[in-house]
């Protein structure tokens, strides 16, 4: 495929690379940041990257399944964020900070 057409015409690959980039940025945030809330945000970013690729696949292959999966991903991501932040609130009340190193003190 010549380079010029790949620049002027948006192919499925463009969306997939965007999705991969989002996923990797999110992953970078997860392994790099120390703040539990920012880590949760980065996870949301990763899930969004996945959503982009689902929608793009669905659009380009003319099916509806991808959209349905996106629905489920969104519902689960929202639930995950709610529960994750509830944990963060509990941690914050105990240690007055939400650095993930606080989680090391948790023993059963």
């Amino acid at each position, binding site marked *: 495929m010549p380079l010029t057409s790949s620049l002027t015409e948006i192919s499925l690959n463009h969306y997939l690379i965007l999705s991969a980039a989002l996923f990797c940025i999110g992953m970078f945030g997860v392994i790099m940041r120390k703040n539990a809330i920012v880590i949760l945000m980065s996870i949301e970013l990763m899930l969004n990257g996945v959503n982009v690729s689902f929608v793009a696949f669905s659009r380009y292959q003319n099916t509806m399944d991808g959209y349905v999966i996106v629905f489920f991903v*969104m519902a689960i991501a929202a639930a995950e964020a709610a529960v994750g*932040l509830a944990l963060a609130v509990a941690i914050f009340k105990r240690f007055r900070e939400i650095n993930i190193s606080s989680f090391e003190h948790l023993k059963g």
Partner: protein
Amino acid sequence: MIYQLGPVLFMATLSLLFGVVVLFLVSKVGPKLKPTKAKLESYESGISGQQASTTKVPVKFYLTAILFIVFDIEAIFIYPWAAVFKDFLAEGYGSFILIEMVVFMATLVWGLFYIWKGKALDWE
């Protein structure tokens, strides 16, 4: 296609530009006074001193947001259902899709009942 996005982006840019330009112009027109120390302090009806960081904020607000998410997702799943309900009825699958949604809603009504009993909805 992407042309549907055009008007939306145009409107967003327009209102953003309007805001920025107007605020910029107004800041040029208005009088320039050197603010005193008392003026820069946050306005607390004359009682100065307390800072926002020492305020106790109830967790209730956060709880409301969680419960909002839960029922928002429920609503999101009801919308597509509402769109096809009449079509399913016309094709004779009405009872199937009705029962499906009743089960879904019943689960969440049970959840609502639970939070009600758990006093998560009470604001003192």
